[in-house]
Structures are given as C-alpha cells and as structure tokens.
C-alpha cells in the first residue's frame, strides 16, 4: 500500500534568491492584499480627484488664452501637495495601521523571522507596501501633472523655466511619505490592534496641529510651528519649492524635527520588531 502523501524529507526544489531580496516578497504581498479591498479603491479614486481637476484646468489654460488665470505656476504644485495631505493621512491610516500590528496580533512575526528573512528585510517589506501607496497619491500624480502641462501646452517653456520643480516634487514627496510611513510603522509595532494604532497616529498628527494652532492664537507668533507634525512639512515644503516660508520658526529646525521623528521611529522599530522577546 503506497502512502497518499509522502511527508519524509525532500530537497528544496525552488530557486534560491539572493540575500536582501526577500523584502520584495513582503512588499508585493502587502500591495496585492490592499488592492483587493474595494473600499481602498474609493479612497484612491478620491485621492486622484485633484489630479483630474488640475488636468482639466491645465488643458483649458493651454487652449483658451482668456483662461490664463488657470495657468500652472510653482504655487500650483505646492498647493497640490497641501491638498493631498488629507489623503496622505487616510492612506497612511488605512494601509499602515495594521502592517505590523496585525502580525503581532496573530503571532506571525515569529513565523516571518524563522524564515531566511532578516528584521531589516521585514521592515523594508512593510515600508515598501506603505511607500508604494503613499507615492501613488503624491509623487506620481504630481509628476504626471508636470508631464501633462508639457503635453497640453506643446512647449517646454514652463518646465524649462522651472526646472527645479522636478527635483522639488520628488524631494518633497519623499520627505512627506518617509515621515508618514516611518511614524506609522513605529506606532504599528507598538500595538496589536490596527484600530488603536490608526487612532494614535491620527491623534498625534491632529493634536500637534491643534497645539500649534492654540499657541499661535495666544502669542500671535508662529515661531513654535516646529511643534506641529504637519507644520514642519509645510515649512520644509515652502523651502523646497523656493517659496517664502509661511512660519516664523527656522526651517532648519523643522528639518531637525523631521529627522528626529524618523530616527525615533527607526529606533522603536529596531526595539519592537523581534522574533523572540528575550527578558534580561
């Protein structure tokens, strides 16, 4: 009688991947999982709403000379990112809140790390998932808008005159999404509940904004803008887009705060993403 299924030792017949590429598997799986959710498509569609509106405005300004008012400028691209901030918050909360918390909840972290996968690769994979969607609502539409402007006007005049826009859009989008992604991942690693993590993140972002708003109202001075999560990004954004910084606080201080927040998040992730808790 032959066994139905042979459970004895078998050689691994798969392909051996080079070390350092395992994060791609986690990132790709995460992206696929999010894309299966219908509700997320609605969020994504809403996030791209501004792009479609701006595209129509660019088309009208390029084709009707009496609609010069709608012509793009550096401020247009800066405003684009400002309006996208709310969608960055929603996407960060939706995609990021459960990335590590759900694994911790189901004790999957130990299983992940028992595979040929380093902690750094695990975090990079999760980060990749979140960065993909955040860039999809910030960098990608902004660059596409720039491209559309060139195509609609059939001229390189605007892009040529504002050549710095290309690196500015890229740099600001990266600063914004890296700060959001690292902060959310760090918070996600602190809890086993995605809902709790989501509220904590939204609370931090909105509470720091409220603190700055109150202090600004009392002192009539924006020199404490660095207290706010969002105000720091706004301040850095103005400098990157070569505009007058909107707050009185030094923009370098905002850079330091952002760098500190990312550093703190990396430290939290290093402490929390461990296969086995070793009590010393």
């Amino acid at each position, binding site marked *: 009688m032959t066994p139905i299924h042979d459970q004895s030792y078998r050689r691994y017949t798969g392909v051996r991947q080079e070390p350092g590429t395992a994060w791609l598997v986690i990132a790709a799986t995460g992206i696929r999982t999010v894309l299966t959710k219908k509700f997320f498509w609605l969020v994504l569609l809403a996030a791209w709403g501004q792009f479609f509106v701006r595209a129509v405005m660019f088309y009208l300004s390029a084709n009707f000379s009496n609609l010069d008012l709608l012509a793009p400028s550096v401020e247009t691209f800066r405003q684009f990112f400002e309006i996208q901030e709310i969608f960055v918050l929603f996407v960060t909360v939706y995609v990021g809140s459960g990335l590590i918390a759900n694994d911790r909840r189901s004790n999957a972290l130990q299983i992940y790390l028992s595979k040929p996968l380093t902690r750094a690769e695990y975090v990079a994979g999760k980060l990749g998932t979140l960065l993909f969607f955040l860039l999809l609502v910030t960098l990608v539409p902004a660059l596409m808008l720039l491209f559309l402007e060139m195509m609609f006007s059939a001229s390189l005049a605007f892009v040529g005159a504002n050549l710095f826009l290309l690196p500015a859009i890229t740099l600001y989008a990266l600063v914004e999404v890296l700060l959001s992604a690292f902060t959310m991942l760090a918070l996600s690693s602190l809890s086993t509940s995605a*809902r709790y993590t989501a509220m904590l993140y939204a609370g931090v972002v909105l509470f720091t904004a409220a603190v700055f708003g109150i202090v600004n109202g009392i002192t009539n001075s924006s020199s404490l803008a660095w207290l706010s999560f969002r105000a720091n990004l706004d301040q850095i954004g103005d400098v990157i887009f070569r505009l007058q910084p909107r707050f009185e606080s030094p923009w370098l201080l905002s850079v330091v705060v952002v760098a500190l927040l990312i550093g703190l998040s990396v430290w939290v992730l290093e402490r929390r993403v461990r296969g086995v808790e070793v009590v010393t």
Partner: protein
Amino acid sequence: MSTPTRSSVPAATSESAVAPAFLSSAWRIYDLSLGQMLWSRRTVFMAFVVGGPVVVAVILRLLVTMDLVSGRGMVDGRPIIVDGPIIFGLMIWGFYLRLSVPLLGVFYGTALMADEVEDKTITYLFTRPVSRGAVLFGKYLAYLASTGLVVLPSVMLVFFLVVPLLGGDIGSNFPSLVTDLALLTVGLAVYGALFALIGAWFKRPLLTGLVFIFGWEPIVVVVPGYMKRLTVSYYLQGLVPHAMPQEGLVSTILSILQANEVLPSAAVSVIGLGLILVVGLGLATWLVERREYVLEQ
C-alpha cells in the same frame, strides 16, 4: 417513564419566558463594559487626548508666571489683548470640540460592536437572554460615562489653570464653564451615536469615521447652501457662542455669522443635534438587531 406534572410545567415556562427588560439588560451591559473601557490600553489614548490640553495649560501658566507671555499683540496693525477667558474659549474650541470629542467619538463609537467582533467575543453576548439592541445601548452608555469621566475633569483643570491668567476672573466666567461642560457632553453623545451607527453599518468604520470628521466636515462646512447641515460640527458651532466670552469682538463676529445663517441659532442646533442623536442611535440599534455577524476564522 414519568410525565411532568401539571403544576411543574407552567412554573418552569413562566420563569424562562420572562426576558429582562431592555433598560435593565442595557444596564447589565453598561456595568460590564464600563470597567473594560476604563481599565484598558485605550485609556492611554484617552489620557493622551485629554491630558494634552492640561499639559499645555500648565506650560502656559508657567510662561505667564515668568512674564514670558503678555497676551498683548498686534493684528493688522491693531493692538489686541488676549486674556484667560479668551484663551480658555480657544482651547475649548480647538482642543475639545474640534479634536478630542470627535476623536473619542470615532474611536469608541465605531468600536462598540467592532471590538467584540474582532475579539470573537460577540457570541457570548448574543447568546445571553438580552436583546442585541440592549447590548449596543449598554455599551453606548458605558462609552458616555467613561469619556465623560475623563474629558470633563480635564476641562475643569484647564479652566482653573487658564481662566485666572492675564486678568481673567473665575467667578464671572464660571457659568461659561457649565455651558462648556454641557456642550462637551452633548458633543460626546451625538458623535458617539453617529459613530455607533457607522460602526454598525460599515465594514471599515474607523476610516469612514476619520473621513467624516477630517474630510467631510471641514470641507462641507464652508460650502454654501444646505450641505453643511449634514455635519455635526455645524450644529455644535451654533451652541459655541454661549461658551465664548460674551463681550468684545468675538461675540460680535459670531452674531453676524448667525444673522447670515452661516451659523445656526441655538434652537436649530439643539433640534439638529437631538435628531442626529436619536436617529443615529435608533438606526444603530435596529441594524445590530438584524445584522448577521460572521466571525473570521
């Protein structure tokens, strides 16, 4: 084999057939849930949300004591003076009504049923001889009690820390504190009812709630027409003037806004909020009574 006697059957039936009344069932659930809500990791979140304003108030008091904040400034070339009651009004609006109350409402309101589903403990509640609606209502009461117990003392602390600053007077401003406390209670109740409905209705209640308070409400409030009536903050704004200082520029601006229907009158606000509360809670109860919860394996 013995047959049941005629006298024993009705006795057993009458004992088991009498289900607890809706309110007493809700009270049992309230009793059970209150402790769970107060003594959990969520308290950290709640402490963060309501403790923040207290910390800001303490820092502000220290700064004023050290003469680092004068409360005098210039806006558009005109001198302005900010005193304790005005700062308190700012904090009530900025920290509590626009932030803490909606956030707590979304966090707890959407979790009333979702928590039990997520923890797979809803079966234990639904197999008890209490109506499903009573489960939701009891949990809603526990939410009101737990958030109220934390938010209202925080407001009291902020009041006593901030109002005496820069020439403010506690005695004359005490009625505004009572109004503020009532306003916050109404806000917690209405947002809680609305998010209980969202929690009972949607599969992803948290994001839906966040989109509502930080996407829908801020945008719609500035849109002309009737759209703003589909928000809670519009009706809460209508009650805020009573919590703000009654003299000076602020009340003048608010009265102009009310006259132009940018803000609703107090009566319209009360009716609007009452309607949202009753409809929200009623629909949530109705949905929970009829919904089939499938637990993920």
